[in-house]
């Protein structure tokens, strides 16, 4: 994650020009972001300890995820897919400096002082859902690019964490990888390598990959009403296109020849 925060040199100059708002953000960030979350009700201990976020920051992420994925038939609740642990695992892969920036953004988002900017002088986790959504929109649409950056970081983190979970695939109608996918497999002695077609001719067509058998909890939800009307839909492309022009004529070039006369593969 690359997050340009006010503490950073380049961001700071442009930021200070924005006056009071910028100053308030700087104060909040510089004055120890932990202050922002000292009253946050901590997130209950998860199945495994978190690597990047503390319990208060985890509580903020959990609250944000609830707003990213509101109650909707077929969509598991973020807690069911352990979205906070998944987000923490993603963040843990980033550079330590990027992890620190992420923690700062989470804490700023929670901050009651910072909420003042959006007429919401409360911890984010203590707001009602309407106020939470309003604060999210305020960050998303802020005139201050740095706030939009912070919002983008949190949205990408949480949407990656949630929607990469196989438990959410059914909700979005995704059947998962093709059944032919071998999955993680280590080399086994004596096992022949995967065959690859190397002849110039057309490859033998493999059978169509059927959707894998899903356990009941992953089965696709019943069809939901579509919001658009039926209309004629174009058939798939099949019209042939003209053959590409013949390659450029080869003319002698001026490059030094490779020693040994090796030309081409």
């Amino acid at each position, binding site marked *: 994650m690359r997050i340009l925060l006010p503490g950073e040199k380049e961001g700071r100059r442009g930021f200070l020009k924005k006056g009071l708002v910028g100053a308030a953000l700087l104060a909040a960030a510089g004055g120890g972001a932990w202050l922002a979350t000292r009253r946050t009700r901590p997130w209950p201990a998860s199945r495994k300890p978190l690597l990047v976020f503390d319990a208060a920051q985890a509580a903020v992420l959990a609250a944000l995820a609830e707003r990213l994925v509101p109650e909707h038939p077929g969509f598991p609740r973020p807690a069911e897919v352990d979205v906070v642990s998944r987000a923490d695992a*993603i963040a843990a892969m980033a550079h330590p400096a990027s992890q620190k920036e992420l923690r700062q953004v989470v804490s700023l988002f929670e901050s009651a002082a910072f909420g003042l900017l959006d007429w919401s002088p409360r911890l984010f986790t203590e707001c009602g859902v309407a106020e939470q959504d309003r604060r999210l929109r305020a960050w998303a649409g802020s005139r201050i690019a740095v706030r939009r950056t912070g919002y983008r970081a949190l949205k990408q983190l949480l949407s990656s964490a949630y929607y990469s979970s196989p438990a959410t695939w059914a909700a979005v109608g995704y059947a998962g990888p093709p059944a032919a996918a071998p999955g993680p497999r280590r080399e086994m002695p004596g096992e022949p390598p995967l065959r690859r077609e190397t002849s110039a001719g057309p490859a033998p067509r493999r059978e169509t990959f059927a959707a894998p058998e899903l356990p009941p909890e992953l089965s696709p939800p019943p069809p939901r009403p579509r919001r658009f009307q039926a209309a004629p839909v174009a058939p798939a492309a099949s019209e042939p296109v003209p053959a590409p022009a013949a390659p450029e004529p080869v003319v002698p070039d001026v490059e030094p020849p490779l*020693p040994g006369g090796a030309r081409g593969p």
Partner: protein
Amino acid sequence: MAPEARPGRILTGADVSRDPDERPDVCVVGSGAGGAVVAARLAQVGLHVVVLEEGPWHRPEDSTLREEDAYPRLYQEKGQRATADLAITILQGRALGGTTVVNWTTSFRTPDRVLAHWRRVHGVEGITPEALAPHFLAVEERLGIHEQPADEVNANNGALWEGAGRLGWARARTRRNVQGCQNLGYCHMGCPLGARTSMDQTYLPDAVAAGARVYANARAVRVEYRERRAVAVHAEVLDPRTDRPTGRRVTVRPRVLVLSGGAVNTPALLLRSRLDISGRVGKRTFLHPVAAMVGLYRDRVDGWSGAPQSVTSHHFADRGPGKVGFFLEAAPVHPALAARSFGGFGAAHQDLMAHLPNASALIALAVDGFLPEETGGEVSIRGDGRVRVDYDIRAPIWEALREGCKALARAHLAAGAQSVFSLHEDPVEIRDEAEVPRLDRAPWERLRVSVFSAHAMGGCAMGRDPERSVVDARLKMHGMDNIFVVDGSVFPTSLGVNPQLSIFGMAHWAAAHVAALLR
């Protein structure tokens, strides 16, 4: 010259239990589209070649085809590379074989007009269509590059084919570097069938067969140089399981050094090594900034299935003087990438996600770097060691992205989409032609609309003038006697086409110039 005396090999971080000190003829840093081809060509003429690659050796059978595994394992910065302000997501591969392991296999030769522009504006002499043609032919033959058959165009690409056709726009099926492709649709997660002719399946084995030693999990940290010559490359060995340094080092002392780390990592290595004579390293970074429009169709599109890119329209690639051109393609639709890209938060975002099977994603790629005033982005190194990419999307590029999205909206509608969405944070929804101008009123401003790049180029621009460029028209660094740069970073502008074949061809051509220095 007795390559049989030096058996070639691929070593991973697990194979390195001491601190090797290699003294080859050539060290190639990076094993992607540039490095692999150069390494193979040089090894085949009997030169001793060592390749350093920071990414893992990913075998086809290692692919789980899950986004949660693929992006962290096979992409730069665990799939989190972006400009410093997060406004542009940058997709770049990181594996043995580089981006060729995860790209969408689209293969174009460098357009003649681009080469002509380089000659006219940047003083790049000698790289002509005629000079490159035999090299393109050789690469195309080795990689089996061929046009995607008409009956293997998926519905996602079919939307562009149909839309462009009905609107009377130029369109074509793309050529792809695949052999025995089953059109699974998972190119960007590492083909599980080994059916793409990526570098790890082709030129790297060729190099190894000719005696090259290839280190995976070996990250070049610094180039050591004395006066006008590189004397050593220092690399740290990474644990293949954790991707963290094992404490082992590889030192390579080559006669000639070839840098092929790509348009972000090659400038970064030079800057870390304080090898920036003209002050131009890391400048003129071009990204083909991409905006997308999502069409929702009555029938299922299943945009995750089928070859990810098989149709292209270059109808708007050249829009005349003063305008930034754009070209149109499709992008595969997978849940996590879609979720990161779709606008909104909460119910609106979720509703779009709920319609994913019916969504077709078409993209407009802005052809940046051709206007006289364009300086592109910049690669630099932060105080804490992280690479930093900045790219200010200026007005002419926003204009191209806006017009590109309007074109895509029309294409979707012509193809029968019932509704089309922009990727604005507050999505613009279009249901018929009369609503297309709504895109004119949308905010085209950073972080208000999702912008991507899968084509990082530039940063070590070639040119005649050492004050304004980094390498000459033979790809040798100005002011250095034995350093070449052979990757997408040498392009002085973007290309207007997907870059991999340009890099293959140029590397195939450049190998002779590298070899010439060793005779």
